């Protein structure tokens, strides 16, 4: 099955200088590439996915089971803009927030989760 890597469409990656453009978000392709604020753009296989970053956890000690249920079990599951956690487990091990379009897998900005509120994008 090693021959699969030569199939059409898999030859060009975002490392290819002809397709790579630092100013533009990476285009959707066979490998999702995530811009890590520390380590630069890396294959998504170096990261652990951490789910929707816009969820707000109920206050600790809150006994309101309905809001805990909604927090744990319900998902917006949008088709389009999504803000999500990833941890760079095979790199700097930092948690980051990534903007990604779930309809195209096009990635946008990323920032360290501990530096910015997960619900607000950094300015500028």
């Amino acid at each position, binding site marked *: 099955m090693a021959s*699969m890597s030569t*199939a059409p469409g898999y030859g060009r990656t975002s490392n290819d200088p002809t397709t790579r453009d630092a100013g533009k978000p990476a285009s*959707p392709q066979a*490998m999702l590439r995530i811009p890590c604020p520390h380590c630069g753009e890396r*294959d998504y296989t170096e990261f652990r996915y951490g789910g929707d970053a816009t969820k707000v956890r109920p206050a600790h000690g809150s006994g309101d089971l309905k809001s805990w249920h909604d927090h744990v*079990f319900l*998902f917006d599951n949008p*088709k389009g803009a999504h803000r999500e956690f990833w941890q760079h487990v095979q790199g700097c091990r930092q948690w980051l927030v990534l903007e990604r379009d779930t309809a195209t897998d096009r990635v946008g900005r990323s920032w360290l989760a501990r530096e910015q509120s997960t619900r607000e994008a950094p300015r500028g």
Partner: protein
Amino acid sequence: MISRYSALALLRRAVTGAPWQRAWRAPDPEPSYDVIVIGGGGHGLATAYYLAANHGIRKVAVLERGYLGSGNVGRNTTIVRSNYQIDGNTQFFEHSLKLWEGLSHELNYNVMLSQRGQIVLAHGPSQLDVLARKGNVMRLNGIDAELLERADVARMLPFLDFSPDSRFPIFGGLLQRRAGTVRHDAVAWGYARAADRLGVDIIEQCEVTGFLRKGDRITGVATTRGRISAGRTAISVAGHSSQVAALAGLKLPVESHLLQAFVSEPIKPFLDHVLSFGAELFYISQSDKGGLVFGGHIDGFNTYTQRGQFPKVRTVAECAVALMPSISRLRLLRHWAGIQDMTPDGSPFIGRTPLRNLYLNGGWCYQGFKATPATGWCLAHTIAHETEHPLIRHLSLDRFERNNGFDEYGTGLWTYKQ
């Protein structure tokens, strides 16, 4: 009226050269129906068929955004089986397998059920114990199950890696002889044709854009082909369950993930069974054309792209070669992806919703195809009687609120770990 398929009809057309009629009509939507089923996949079409066939409700429309069978009914690995362990699942999937066994006659359409048997492998003594327990649960429920020892597996599947230093030594397996594969496109076409014969309107290229409601009661749908009122409405749209439910203001315990499937170049008859690896989630069978059809885990992050990531191709190919070293030089012919509605416990939802006259069938994770007949059967019953069929009472939408998660595989309550 569309004529029945038979040997005589085949012979008549062979002699006369008369063209075959189209298999279902292409009606314009009427202003009102008793029941609207949103989604023209296997589940939606089966629901419409059983509404008409079992409950006499024939003023039914199936609304499909694209074309029939363009979603997951044509994207799966075609496996049908009923080797489930948790009470509720065991009986539901056995009902489904029994319906599969009679389906070609029921629909007057050959769905090409091939009961070639499915073998789940055990790679350690404790795993064989788990399979023995599962087999006992099945047999107590009247389902066929046979525990295989290493020598049995070696006789049936001589091409597996039985070498003394194999990474995943084979201790045995669990065989369900009645399990097998079905021609998946034929399921959509067969249900569509049979439902159409009973008067169901199948309306393609008709996207639902909103719900009509009076208070907490759903009274119909707005579509790209106009407003249609309905006594009852069912959502059966797999990967887009969250989007359609959101049109009614519902938020679901569902996250949409991507599952890839693969087919190799065709080879001579080689793999006689459906085979499941015990060391990873990996399943493989050989199609009638000779290609090896296989799949594995979801890609691992929510997406609607229907386009797989390359690392999963590699992982699944590694599973294939670890299990069957002799296929290492086969080439992949095609691979594709479907959008799977993953739920926190890996089990689906079938039944009523908080809104009156609105029913939901979704969250099927990996299990949707084999469940097609039983889902249609039980959802039709639920719609017709306004109460859940006994086989699906454990699959209610509010089960997490009642701490009744239904976790067949014991992996915990995570959408992307099922």
